[in-house]
């Protein structure tokens, strides 16, 4: 009975993504929001002061968190003491990145209604997928998603694969974020690129090294709260400008927009369906395979709180998308008509991705501009801290404790190794951030999501839902998904043409997820069903025990269970 329902739910989730992807415009990639060359602005004093206030507050929290942290569970999972509401806020913070705030409002600014469709495709799919995995994840795992994937399978091979999947995602995402941060800060604060990159690296290490998951979660929560506050204020000011009449808002926008009334209805959305579907798959399933987001589900006390965090996160993200819609329309009225935000050619200063920032100045003056700039910086810090912790956990918990020490590692030593890894990650991300300053890193975020969708996600999902999965299937299929994603990105237009400079791409589409996910799932299926070894039989037998635990939480690692 249960498995029939599960299969049905899976099918629906798959359908949703394929159709949802059709509405995504391929040219809108959040990664592009903060790449490309930028001009340095004059030093923005209020932005820097407000940012320093944020940094001071988060460092106080980190100091407080360092007093609370004693055990490995405190370090990796905040001792399981985060509430569902807090965790939901933190997860929504992971979504409300600088790039999505600037990118979605820019999309609404340029094409109106299509921006709403874009946010919806994402909002509708993600909660259902998380709904499918959140509770089972919490019931089965301890600190990392590899705990869950290797629950009834061969610990060493599956942990190794999951750790490499995590590290690949973390490394690519981290470099892209650091490079993006350097450029954004150059633009917003008028600071040197190198200073910005070093500041991001040093603060990231501080949060994770001293405060562990507790500080990382609080930084993300504070950032989510101030971003929601800032966006709410901007939306309210826009609405006040039109006397709180939606009619007035849309009327004025239609009057001044180049496309006129066309911005009020769906426009031409799909110019390359394969890329669009691939991007949609990568965004939706990739998010459900990002190690730093999955890790958040272990910070709550039980499955009930994990489910609650999905609901809370969905609420905040939905509210945030509605705000960006109003902000985008507000920018049409207040930014596109104001010559102070244009350069000599009549283009928006800093590109259309800066419209939300310009709108902040238009509705709240330079102080509020400083506030929004500081929030954008804070956003990047919060995300990289989570990434660094996830990367360090993959090394210390999965590779050192799980693979090297066969789950018998000394806890204190495991945490120490994790902290050393964080330091190394900090240094590496600063060095690579500086090295990649002039490189096009847009492909890195796309690749990170594609790997998460083609390696981490299939193995994790099937380990929880498919009884016949075996170690052989998981390792070969997941490995093939990982390699296919990397190979197709290298052979595709973003690397083969833009980085290597060849004329034509061997693989014609920008995103690999459609094919690499198919390879992963087929590979896992094929090498599982043909696996008739004794080990495979035992692994399938262990599914019943895992299923009971995933449904009831019996034997799960709880807040008091360490």
């Amino acid at each position: 009975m249960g498995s029939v329902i599960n299969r049905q739910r899976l099918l629906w989730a798959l359908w949703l993504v394929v159709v949802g992807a059709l509405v995504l415009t391929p040219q809108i990639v959040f990664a592009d929001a903060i790449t490309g060359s930028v001009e340095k602005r004059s030093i923005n004093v209020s932005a820097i002061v407000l940012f320093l206030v944020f940094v001071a507050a988060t460092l106080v929290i980190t100091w407080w968190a360092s007093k609370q942290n004693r055990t490995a569970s405190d370090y990796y999972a905040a001792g399981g003491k985060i509430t569902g509401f807090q965790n939901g806020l933190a997860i929504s913070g992971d979504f409300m990145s600088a790039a999505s705030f600037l990118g979605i409002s820019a999309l609404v600014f340029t094409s109106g209604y299509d921006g709403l469709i874009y946010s919806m495709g994402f909002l509708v799919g993600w909660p259902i997928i998380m709904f499918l995995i959140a509770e089972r994840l919490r019931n089965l795992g301890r600190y990392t998603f590899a705990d869950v994937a290797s629950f009834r399978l061969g610990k060493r091979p599956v942990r190794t694969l999951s750790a490499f999947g995590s590290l690949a995602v973390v490394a690519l995402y981290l470099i892209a974020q650091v490079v993006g941060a350097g450029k954004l800060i150059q633009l917003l604060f008028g600071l040197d690129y190198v200073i910005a990159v070093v500041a991001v690296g040093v603060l990231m290490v501080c949060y994770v090294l001293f405060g562990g998951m507790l500080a990382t979660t609080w930084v993300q929560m504070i950032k989510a709260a101030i971003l929601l506050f800032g966006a709410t204020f901007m939306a309210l000011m826009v609405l006040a400008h039109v006397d709180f009449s939606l009619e007035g808002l849309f009327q004025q926008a239609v009057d001044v927009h180049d496309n006129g009334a066309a911005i009020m209805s769906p426009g031409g959305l799909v110019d390359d369906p394969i890329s669009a579907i691939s991007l949609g798959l990568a965004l939706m399933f990739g998010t459900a395979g990002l190690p730093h987001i999955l890790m958040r589900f272990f910070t709550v006390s039980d499955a009930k709180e994990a489910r609650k965090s999905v609901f809370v996160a969905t609420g905040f993200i939905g509210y945030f998308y509605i705000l960006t819609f109003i902000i985008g329309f507000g920018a049409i009225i207040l930014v596109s008509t104001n010559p102070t935000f244009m350069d000599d050619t009549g283009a928006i200063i800093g590109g259309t991705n800066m419209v939300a920032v310009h709108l902040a100045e238009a509705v709240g003056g330079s102080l509020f501009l400083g506030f929004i700039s500081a929030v954008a910086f804070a956003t990047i810090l919060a995300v990289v801290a989570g990434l660094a912790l996830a990367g360090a956990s993959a090394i210390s918990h999965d590779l050192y404790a799980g693979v090297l020490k066969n789950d018998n590692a000394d806890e204190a030593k495991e945490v120490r190794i994790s902290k050393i890894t964080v330091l190394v990650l900090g240094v590496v991300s600063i060095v690579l951030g500086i090295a990649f300053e002039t490189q096009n890193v847009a492909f890195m975020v796309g690749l990170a999501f594609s790997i998460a969708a083609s390696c981490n996600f299939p193995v994790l999902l099937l380990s929880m839902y498919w009884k016949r999965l075996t170690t052989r299937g998981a390792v070969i299929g997941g490995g093939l998904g990982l390699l296919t994603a990397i190979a197709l990105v290298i052979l595709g237009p973003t690397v083969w043409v833009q980085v290597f400079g060849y004329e034509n791409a061997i693989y014609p589409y920008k995103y690999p997820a459609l094919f690499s996910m198919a390879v992963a799932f087929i590979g896992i299926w094929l090498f599982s069903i043909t696996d008739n070894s004794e080990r495979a039989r035992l692994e399938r037998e262990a599914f019943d025990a895992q299923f009971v635990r995933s449904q009831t939480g019996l034997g799960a690692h709880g807040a008091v269970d360490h």
Partner: protein
Amino acid sequence: MARPTDDASPWQAIQRNPTFQTLVERRGRFATRLSLIMMALYFTFILLIAFAPGVLGMPLGSGTVITLGIPIGLGLIVVAIVC
């Protein structure tokens, strides 16, 4: 709740337990229903965009620029949150 003991097949005992079966069934039904509602609404919306974009682009009344798509789109976000 008591921890399962290490007898021959504690998991199978739990799986056969009617309370457990009810739990799994109810949870499954709840998730199914939720997904169904959401999917139905979302599919309708996407199909409208794909095959009849004019419907969403229809003004709500004469003398207004607000199109049918605005309340429907925002409504779907609200439904996603409530669900």
